[in-house]
């Protein structure tokens, strides 16, 4: 099922005002309902390698898998197949980055954050690792959907810090999970129902460290009629505020509902996809 009619997508990735390299990577496949964003880390150009590997691998492998499998069906654990699919492919991508980091001295210690979603059947499965985020604008409400895997977030959750205090912390940018730094990684995966009109924002910390959430939300809302402009404006805001890190954003608007084709129609669609 081609989702490019139902989903409008745009992305931007910018090195920012200070860094010479862009260690972020983004991948979009609107037809398959796939959006992936990664923020790499590691010396020299290793960060770019890690984030590039993960987005490319996940993009191509999930691309193959999604044309053959129906992500909306339930597996034997009572979960949507998309969950297991993401878990498996993220594990494989993690392994690939970890192996590269182990075998090539110049890549030692590299890793990357990850935030991604696959859209299907009026819903989406979101996976994330680290401090790259997913936000949702629904009507007037702009909320953060993912919770960072970071030291600050853990301190907030344990009550050591309030959200307000966390803004003054000197311990920013310490993530507790990342892809490719250990043989195994645990992604956080959840399903969400989507609604026509929803706008999803995926971003690296270069955006939310430089621009307050309220301002990000107001920008997306005010420019919701023009996603291209909204994406450009978000990057520009981060850069106008100093642009100390790479900035990447993906915006996805749900234009209309996209129920999965079921029964004979679904079967025919799969058959067609199979012969393609």
């Amino acid at each position: 099922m081609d989702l490019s009619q139902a989903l409008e997508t745009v992305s931007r990735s910018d090195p920012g005002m200070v860094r010479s390299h862009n260690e972020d990577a983004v991948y979009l496949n609107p037809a398959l309902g796939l959006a992936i964003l990664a923020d790499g880390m590691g010396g020299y150009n290793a960060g770019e390698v890690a984030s590039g590997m993960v987005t490319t691998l996940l993009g191509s492998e999930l691309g193959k898998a999604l044309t053959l499998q129906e992500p909306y069906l339930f597996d034997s654990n009572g979960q949507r197949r998309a969950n297991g699919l993401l878990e498996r492919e993220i594990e494989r991508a993690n392994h690939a980055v970890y192996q590269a980091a182990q075998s090539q001295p110049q890549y030692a210690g590299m890793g990357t954050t990850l935030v991604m979603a696959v859209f299907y059947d009026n819903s989406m499965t979101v996976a994330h690792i680290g401090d790259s985020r997913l936000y949702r604008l629904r009507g007037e409400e702009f909320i953060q959907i993912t919770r960072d895997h970071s030291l600050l977030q853990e301190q907030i959750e344990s009550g050591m810090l309030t959200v307000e205090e966390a803004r003054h912390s000197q311990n920013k940018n310490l993530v507790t999970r990342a892809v490719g730094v250990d043989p195994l990684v645990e992604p956080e995966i959840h399903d969400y129902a989507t609604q026509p009109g929803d706008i999803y924002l995926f971003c690296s910390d270069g955006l939310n460290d430089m621009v307050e959430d309220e301002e990000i939300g107001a920008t997306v809302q005010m420019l919701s009629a023009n996603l291209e402009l909204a994406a450009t404006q978000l990057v520009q805001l981060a850069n106008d505020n100093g642009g100390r890190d790479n900035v990447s954003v993906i915006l996805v608007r749900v234009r209309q509902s996209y129920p999965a084709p079921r029964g004979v129609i679904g079967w025919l669609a799969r058959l067609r996809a199979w012969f393609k």
Partner: protein
Amino acid sequence: MAKLILSMDNLMLKEISLTKERTTIGRKPQNDIQIDNLAISGEHAAIVTILNDAFLEDLGSTNGTQVNGQPIKKHFLQNGDVIELGKYRLKYVNEAQPQVSQADFERTMIIRPDMAQKLADQSNEKAPMGDTQTGMSTNHFSPPPSHLATEPATPPAPSPQAPPSVLQPAVSLRGAIQVLTGVNAGKELELTKTLTSLGKPGVQVAVITRRPHGYFITHVEGAVFPSVNGKLLDAQAHPLGDHDIIELAGTKMEFFLKS
């Protein structure tokens, strides 16, 4: 490195670097900072240092602990905070880390879960520090306690042009819009926010952005583009000059700068 400056009656007594993960303050000799005064409890307070942040905790002292005049049980210390114990004052100094090597410091790094756990234990928190049972096994992995995944000490590339300082727009003049025609003629709108939208949603909308180096107008939606001084805009942002005339959805308005 953060430090404490101990003083009494404005007389500086001592300077203590916060090198330990837990620094205790009290009257008894086993404390890291011993203050031999009857107003101070045996074990009065403790400071837990987590990387570049420090947390002060009163350990149930008889006379209490104050920070900047307020009694506290727990407090997230900020540079310049003054801790008061009886007649003694401890000034917390944590000179902004970012000056050391901003770009390098702000790079994302991975912190090992076993380290986070260790810190959690030390901070005497009953609440667990989130879920730390990651796939990163602690068994065949035993990094030194203060080990952060390696970030090779490559010097950050110097920025070609110095970035503008945060949240300090160089726009000293305030932009404003005055409506010239239509029902709202005469109305004035100050452009204080970074984004101000003009027009009718679904028909024609433009947005004015306030940036460090000036104001810009951009077309957002609608088949017809707005014009500035009689010239139609394209999809690009267009800089606005003092007394520019904007025409949008049949309404004329003037952009001007106030001092």
